[in-house]
């Protein structure tokens, strides 16, 4: 029964398809008028081309206009940047006793951003006595490369972020050596994203005692 219905439906479809495609011109006449029909081709299974849907162009109003200029933005939402402390107290440094301190950077950006960092100079006691930037356990870490630093007999100053492997550290770029800012964090659109930067200082027995100091600068730049 079912097979008969399917065969019947198939034959009917074929008939419908052919009859639609082979529609002929028709003509009606009488002494007063003549009506002519042109061929009509109806293709029953032809796909209808559709216009690719696109969003209407987003045209926010300009921020300002004046004589010969227009100021616009494609990032109207602002971005914010916070740091948990403005001074990190390392206390009195003692030989082979690592000091680890954490600072938190919080950002809010709808468009993505990067944070660049640099130090004004290594940790300095006076103009000559410095705690050098760490080169890590195998001497391979730098401003660009991080490396493992767990040995208490490896001395220096470095930082760690969550983007690095555990117990890995890097050096800050040094303004006093004309080194430019180095990107330490990159992120996408975030709402109050907190990133921790961990500082580590270890000194040797021969390091002169005293209050060492430097300034680390963080600059937030949106993805423009």
């Amino acid at each position, binding site marked *: 029964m079912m097979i008969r219905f399917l065969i019947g439906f198939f034959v009917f479809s074929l008939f419908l398809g052919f009859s639609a495609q082979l529609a002929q011109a028709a003509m009606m006449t009488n002494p007063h008028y003549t009506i002519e029909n042109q061929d009509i081709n109806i293709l029953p299974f032809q796909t209808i081309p559709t216009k690719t849907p696109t969003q209407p162009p987003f045209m926010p109003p300009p921020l300002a206009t004046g004589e*010969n200029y227009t100021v616009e933005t494609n990032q109207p939402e602002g971005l914010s940047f916070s740091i948990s402390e403005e001074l990190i107290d*390392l206390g009195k*440094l003692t030989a082979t006793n690592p000091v680890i301190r954490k600072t938190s950077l919080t950002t809010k950006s709808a468009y993505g951003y990067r944070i660049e960092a640099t130090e004004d100079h290594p940790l300095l006691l006076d103009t000559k006595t410095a705690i050098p930037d760490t080169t890590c356990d195998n001497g391979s870490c730098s401003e660009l490369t991080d490396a493992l630093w767990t040995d208490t007999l490896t001395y220096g100053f470095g930082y760690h972020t969550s983007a690095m492997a555990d117990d890995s550290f890097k050096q800050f770029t040094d303004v006093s050596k004309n080194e430019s800012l180095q990107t330490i964090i990159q992120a996408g659109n975030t709402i109050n994203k907190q990133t921790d930067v961990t500082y580590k200082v270890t000194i040797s027995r021969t390091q002169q005692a005293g209050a060492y100091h430097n300034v680390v600068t963080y600059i937030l730049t949106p993805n423009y």
Partner: protein
Amino acid sequence: MKNQIFSFLFIFLTVSVCFFTSVRINQAYADSISLKISPSVLQIHATPPAAIKAPFTIENLGSSPVHLTIIFKPFKQNSTTNTILQTVQVADNGIAQSSLSLGPQQQKKLDLSIILPKNIPPTDTYFSVIFLTSQQDTNNASSSLDEGSSSIAERIGIALPVLLTSGESDPQSGFLDTFSSPIFLQAGPVPFTVRISNTGTHFISPRGVIFIKNMFGQTVGRVDLPETNVLAGTTRSLTSLEQPLSDHAVWSEKFLLGFYTATISIAMSSSGSLYTRSIHFIAFPTTFLLIFFVVIIIALSLILRIKKKLSD
């Protein structure tokens, strides 16, 4: 006995007061700093001569006052950058500022003032206005440290990128350099490489969308490419909003099967014409189907064995 209790209480109170006082001193420098700037980017289109005033807002979100130093830093240098940068100022109510003080929770509306001389050639200038917390604040904080204590002072800065075009914009200078994806995939997500080249002398801001159709012609996916600035003479990858750090625009669909067509529609400016290009890719979950066939073969062999045993 009474005297002993009194002496004990006196010593206890003295020690407690000393302890809490010292803790308060240590907490005095542990203030956070918080800044906000809006908008995040300024795009300026000008025809020389022009005296530009671009408004923006800076806010101190913290509970302590901040002192900010204002720095102008070009991020792409050309022959006119220095000439234009010499005219750039941040003005508060029309008065030029080289530094700024903001009270707790204070917001300031400022203007970026740029003078574009008449003889400047049609070119772009790209620079950042950086608001950097002053070293004076950190010096004040370090004075509260114990003698002999080492310290790290921290400064934060927030940059406002400025893209300045002098002369008429030419959106025709941008073109779709690359639109590709892997030809064969086992599963999603699908990474599309979309690279826009700008051969002109002015920045362009293309935006677009990728529609993905399956082998039956049904639209099964959409990836929006938000407006992105492509600087003059550069090529830049467009990314989806969800994956801005990747170099790709990503269609996050995981299960894929069959032949797909991805069509990109991209406009080089909000008023420019639309460019389209299509690519194809095939997705076949080989591992999944292999497991499926192995299971079927095992099941069939078991059925056949049971049938054979039953027939014996």
